[in-house]
């Protein structure tokens, strides 16, 4: 990977604006605590999203859990959040709406746009694989969020009081 090093070296300006990590012990610890705070923030944000069908929150229904939220850094320093959720029933038809709501809430609420992967927990939905692909396809997400009906549905899950 020598060539990777040489091309990265040529871009000191760029690397200075991207947070570095893993350089020494202190920085490692700082970064770990930063990621931990972010993880908690993300969970706080998604836990009170309302279920599309019921009056309860995703936390009340155990659709999301603290252990289902993981954050890590990509090789270039960006943060990637991995969120796993458990649909209330294995044939839940609104699983993709839950996925869209989680993404929308995070996109709207976090100060900086983050990389987000959202997955249905393995073995908890009949068509998990199919839905997982859909809710992580950025083009399908964009198109879905331009649909006024879906927009309304997602908004009602994110801000139950406003609707």
């Amino acid at each position, binding site marked *: 990977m020598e*060539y990777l090093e040489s*091309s990265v070296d*040529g*871009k000191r300006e760029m690397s200075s604006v991207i947070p570095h990590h893993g350089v020494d012990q202190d920085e490692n610890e700082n970064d770990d605590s930063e990621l931990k705070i972010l993880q908690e923030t993300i969970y706080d944000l998604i836990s009170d999203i309302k279920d599309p069908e019921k009056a309860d929150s995703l936390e009340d229904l155990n659709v999301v859990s603290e252990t289902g939220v993981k954050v890590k850094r*990509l090789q*270039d320093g960006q943060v990637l959040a991995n969120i796993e959720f458990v649909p209330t029933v294995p044939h839940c038809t609104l699983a993709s709406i839950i996925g869209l709501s989680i993404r929308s809430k995070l996109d709207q609420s976090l100060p900086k746009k983050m990389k987000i992967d959202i997955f249905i927990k393995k073995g908890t939905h009949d068509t998990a694989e199919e839905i997982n692909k859909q809710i992580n396809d950025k083009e*399908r997400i964009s198109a879905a969020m331009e649909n006024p009906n879906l927009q309304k549905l997602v908004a009602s899950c994110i801000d139950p009081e406003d609707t």
Partner: protein
Amino acid sequence: MYPTLKEHAQLTGHTDQVWCISWSPSGALLASCGGDKTIRIWGKEGELWVCKSVLTDAHTRTIRAVSWSPCGQYLAAASFDATTSVWSRKSGEFECLATLEGHENEVKCAGWACTGNLLATCARDKSVWIWEVTADEEFECASVLSTHTQDVKYVKWHPTRELLASCSYDDTVRLYREASDDWESCALLKGHTSTVWSLDFDKDGHRIVTASADATVKIWREHEPGNPEGIATPDHIPVWKCVCTLSGHHERPIYSVSWCPLSGRIATASGDDSLCVYQELPAEDEKNAPKFELTVRHRGAHAEDINCVAWNPNEEGLLASCSDDGAVKIWQIEKE
């Protein structure tokens, strides 16, 4: 020893994510489009890149892709509103000439054949449409191809033949040719393990490069009937085989790939915010086992996902990219 990418210009004006950029055939103009439902035309004034026109009011939803005709007089724009608009600049100004309707939902890409007589579009409705351009500038549907099993993400014509390639959410690439009475799918390229977002032909059109959400790039080679490798070509139809896979360089889906006809370099753009440039190396068996080397990996090229990358067709080493961060950038590859 290794080249670098130098940011030449940053073009701002779009108010939402930018999905696609396309160079005019002469390389003098760059068209861009995106979530703000506009098309922007950029060109040079002296040494500066400026916005020459903004095309609005043709679409009610995101404009996903733009593509120039080979003569440079027409621009096609594919939109999530299920239509494709065709613009003419023959009068000097851009005017909307036609709005092509037929797809059931989001149109994701549009592309012109080398002759300029055919336009292809593709959509989430899993179909690829081929439109014939008549002498009086009308567009007639010549064929509807429904061979993909999921949404079709991208279409691209062969550089010299009337051969069309498409790639899809069904993880495959398909090629189409005109048979005696209709268009037909004549090749299926299987190998990627997730959505294939983009593809490009090399200069001669004997190879295709594909980019996928599986974070790999694959190079496929055409084997014609009677090929020296002895690869069977049923019905005398050329067979395409994967001859090279490039992996480990992008950490997120690869959304776009461009094969430069001037230098042979391949550029890729990814959801990891980086741009990569590959160069072919001499190899023992260049046909069946080509070697490509990563020569540039420009991390943080944009602040968010990079959706499209394209080499200027006329000025070697000039590259354009666009991103969810709303910016269009122009890069120059520089040798150290």
